[in-house]
């Protein structure tokens, strides 16, 4: 029988809580998160926010690095189209998002794990909804289980 030794994804344990890395732009989405705090809105505590000056600053390497280091999802938040503090940074983020998403899909990482949201400084409620929705979807998907070749080496044996 032929079998693969790459670990299959197990059923999601009931207590599983995903960690999601959120890159929020300084001028809009980060302020939305700030406002959500001021309003004392309850939303899923699974996101770890990293503030960047602009969504256009988010190098695709940041996203891949987050996944490689164990994030179950990556959320990008920027200003609405036309509202970028630097004029066009969010459009650059949008273009990269689409190409990166197709690469991630080819690498076996589901669409729901990578998300882009335009959220202005006033949209605390929409932020809550977006985060809650993403966390629920990623929780249902379960852990990513990316393995590095080093960890994987000893386990790999020829199955006969």
């Amino acid at each position, binding site marked *: 029988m*032929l*079998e693969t030794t790459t670990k299959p994804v197990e059923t999601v344990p009931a207590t599983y809580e995903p960690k999601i890395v959120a890159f929020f732009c300084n001028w809009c989405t980060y302020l939305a998160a700030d406002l959500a705090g001021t309003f004392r809105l309850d939303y899923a505590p699974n996101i770890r926010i990293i503030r960047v000056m602009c969504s256009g600053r988010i190098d695709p390497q940041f996203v*891949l690095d987050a996944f490689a280091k164990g994030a179950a999802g990556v959320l990008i938040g920027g200003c609405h189209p036309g509202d970028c503090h630097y004029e066009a940074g969010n459009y650059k983020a949008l273009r990269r998002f689409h190409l*990166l998403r197709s690469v991630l899909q080819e*690498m076996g990482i589901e669409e729901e794990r990578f998300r882009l949201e335009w959220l202005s400084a006033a949209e605390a409620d929409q932020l809550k909804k977006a985060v809650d929705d993403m966390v629920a979807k990623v929780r249902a998907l379960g852990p990513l289980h990316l393995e590095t070749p080093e960890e994987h080496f000893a386990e790999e044996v020829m199955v006969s």
Partner: protein
Amino acid sequence: MTDVAAGSQTDKPKVAFYWCASCGGCEEAVVDLAEKILDVVAAVDIVFWPVALDFKRKDVEAMEDGSILASFINGAVRTTEQEEMVRLLRRKSRLVIAFGSCSHMGGIPGLANLWDRKSIFETAYRDTPSTVNPEGVYPLPEFKDNGRSVTLPGFYDTVRALNQVAEVDYYLPGCAPTPKLLGQAVEGLLSGELPLKGTVLSPDVALCDECPRKETKPETLTVTEFLRPHQLILDEEECLLAQGVLCMGPATRAGCEALCIQANMPCTGCFGPTSRVKDQGAKALAGFASMVDSNDEEEIEKILSGIVDPVGTLYRYSLPASLLRRKRAEKVS
């Protein structure tokens, strides 16, 4: 160099060449040294080179540890035999040099990391139209028949770059490395003037820096359509990106002197990234996507659909060395 060459046979520094998962082009690159190879042979003893010389594994095993000055290893690591040979040569050598894209970053064989052993075997030994295999016979590491036994190396799910198997001292990039870079590396080895461990032995700037078309690159690169080289007649002087063709030059290390571009073909990225970049494909992705000349989501998607094979284009030589390294295991329902 002359002093070394004048010494007796046993005084000469020992050098080994080995190949793992590779096409043989890197062996060709050694031969491409042309008459210079005579200087190399005069200066060193080649103690192991399966493609050209009849030394065996047991000859290497019999050597003292650390007795080889340098082992040049090309190819990615896919099988148990390759892994064993790499570990053996690492033990016997003072320096291990990853030779060519496959050992540097996984190379083209590394694109197999989009699959695993099971799917590769099923395609190769069952599904291809030319295969007739009704009994479902697949390669086995050991097969016994009438008390006799034959063996094959084990086949790993994941293709690895050389430094994911053993410590690597230097990297000679390229598919294949150019004779000039190899010549410089050998001279460096013999003179003992070695750079910092872990150095990629090629200039640490982007290929655009030495591209003959550099001056034709517009201030802002924008495209409304990505094209593949067969879809247009390429201008021989204009920046290829400006013509809408995906050229990996901006995300690739210099050193090849823009060989492909001089032949009017875009760079495919075989020299890997510069030292400041962790993931060559991600860096190229950021650059290509930013060129898209639209702010409309639908149009952006349409333009990006011109990149027909994103992983194969962005990570043609570097998938095992990328941040994600391989496709995630299939979900079992």
